[in-house]
């Protein structure tokens, strides 16, 4: 999947600014501070957020007969009043899938007959992940699948995503859980204020920054991005962008140097 010069604005304020990336197979983690544009990028990848400029080329996008994207938004959206099995059965009918197998794949077989609203937050997210993977799409986009979960659930959510991310499948997740990125991600995209601060193979990036963990990489890349963006801080429009980004993403950085390496950045 290729993201080419993607820009997205809300209210005229850039949230993603000239982002170009290539996503290969495996698990790619999108990290960055709140309001950096992660959800907007993932929404764009899933096709729910149209770009203002630029384009996104997805695998099998022209094939209307099959599900080409699996998507879990930040807020799990399932309709109340239905059990977990009924919820997945609805989606399974759209792709000729097996709801019970999908439930089993995320360890929710025992909760199959529970109403969606009676599931814990973690179980709802696992249900969302199972939904996203129904129909075996070649691209799965999960927006903060581990958000608000206890450590065990977080690990389970990421392990499920990583297991699905085979040689033929691209899985993109956004997260603040950097230890899980260390454990499961093949590649990392770090966003800062709507721009790519760093992107590439996780190990290569760590080597280039001279760090051992994603948390250290996050700090180093974030520091570089902040330093190179200092001149733009005088721009009053940025505070407005950051405020607007609570919902939609991030603001405009203006031009600055970006430390980029690996295969992900174009």
């Amino acid at each position, binding site marked *: 999947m290729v993201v080419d010069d993607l*820009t*997205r*604005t*809300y*209210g*005229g304020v*850039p949230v993603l600014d000239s982002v170009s990336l290539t996503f290969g197979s495996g698990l790619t983690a999108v990290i960055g501070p709140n309001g950096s544009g992660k959800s907007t990028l993932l*929404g764009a990848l*899933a*096709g*729910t957020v*149209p770009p*203002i*400029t630029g384009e996104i080329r997805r695998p099998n996008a022209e094939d*209307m*007969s*099959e*599900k*080409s*994207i*699996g*998507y*879990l*938004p930040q*807020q799990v*959206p*399932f*309709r109340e*009043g*239905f059990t977990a099995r*009924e919820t997945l059965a*609805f*989606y399974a*009918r*759209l*792709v*000729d899938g097996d709801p019970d197998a999908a439930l089993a794949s995320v360890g929710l077989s025992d909760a199959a007959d529970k109403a969606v609203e009676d599931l814990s937050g973690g179980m709802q997210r696992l249900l969302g992940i199972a*939904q996203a993977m129904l*129909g075996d*799409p070649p691209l799965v986009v999960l927006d903060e699948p581990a958000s608000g979960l206890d450590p065990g659930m977080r690990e389970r959510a990421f392990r499920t995503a990583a297991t699905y991310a085979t040689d033929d499948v691209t899985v993109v997740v956004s997260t603040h859980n950097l230890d899980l990125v260390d454990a499961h991600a093949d590649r990392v995209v770090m966003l800062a204020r709507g721009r790519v601060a760093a992107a590439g193979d996780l190990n290569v990036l760590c080597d280039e920054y001279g760090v051992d963990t994603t948390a250290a990489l996050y700090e180093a890349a974030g520091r570089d991005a902040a330093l190179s963006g200092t001149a733009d801080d005088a721009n009053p429009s940025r505070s407005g962008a950051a405020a607007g980004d609570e919902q939609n993403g991030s603001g405009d950085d203006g031009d600055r140097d970006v430390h980029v390496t690996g295969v992900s950045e174009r």
Partner: protein
Amino acid sequence: MTGDFGVTDAFAGVGAIFRRELATVLRTPGYGVLAVGLLAVLWLLVAVGGGGATGFVPAVVDLLLPAELLVPLLAVVLGYRTLLADAVSGEFAVIRTYPVGVAGYVVGVLFARLVALVAVVGLPFAVIGGYIWLTAAPDTGIFATHAGVDSPLLYVRFLALITLFGAAFLALSMWVSAAATSRRGAAALAVLAFLVGTLGGDLALIQSLMTGTDPSAVAGRAALMPNGAFRGLVFETVIGVSFAQEGNVVDVGRAVGSLAGWALFGSLASVGTLAFRERMSTVIERVRFRFAE
């Protein structure tokens, strides 16, 4: 699932949406309460009008005006949040990642809500019809073939017209649910649609007569809005069969076309609004972005 996206796949998608929506309706106790409430109101109206013994056509006369208000009201209640609910929760964005188009999604929801309309609105009217059949004078059991005879068939026509009338308002209220961005906004738009739909046509007709419109044009113009079309059709095809009348209340063909047209318009507008709303906002953002550059 492989191969081209064919008719079978499209029907499967519509069927899945239909089943889910129908299940949602069945699990909403409020709709059952509405149906029972409507039945009570209708029974009361018929009782006040002389009871079921008066026959089908007198009952239709008693129920016509209340139907003009209650059918649109209940249709709007059934439809005004249907498409909004999935849009606000974000589930519509998830559904769009599956091989089901916007048109298939709207059709599935609309058909399920039509079934709900028949159950919530049509069934109470049908029960009243059954009550009249059981209690009416003997000659109401005759199946009318000519004017001047009361008949259950006339009441069946009334039921069919109620369904068509309700379908028009249901489709229009679904358009409201597609256009609204919040529950409160949907409620406001629904009230507006209800008032315009129920009163707008009559007020416009009165206004046009006051400004010198030829009265002979009334039969055609009355059919343009849903309420005028429904009322005219009831007079022409139900009440008018038993009571000889002079002149046309409404142009029957135009009135049927009007009700079907409003239903079709509401459905297509729902599809168009859902499909193009995001594109429109993106176009506006693009214009802003260009000016900001």
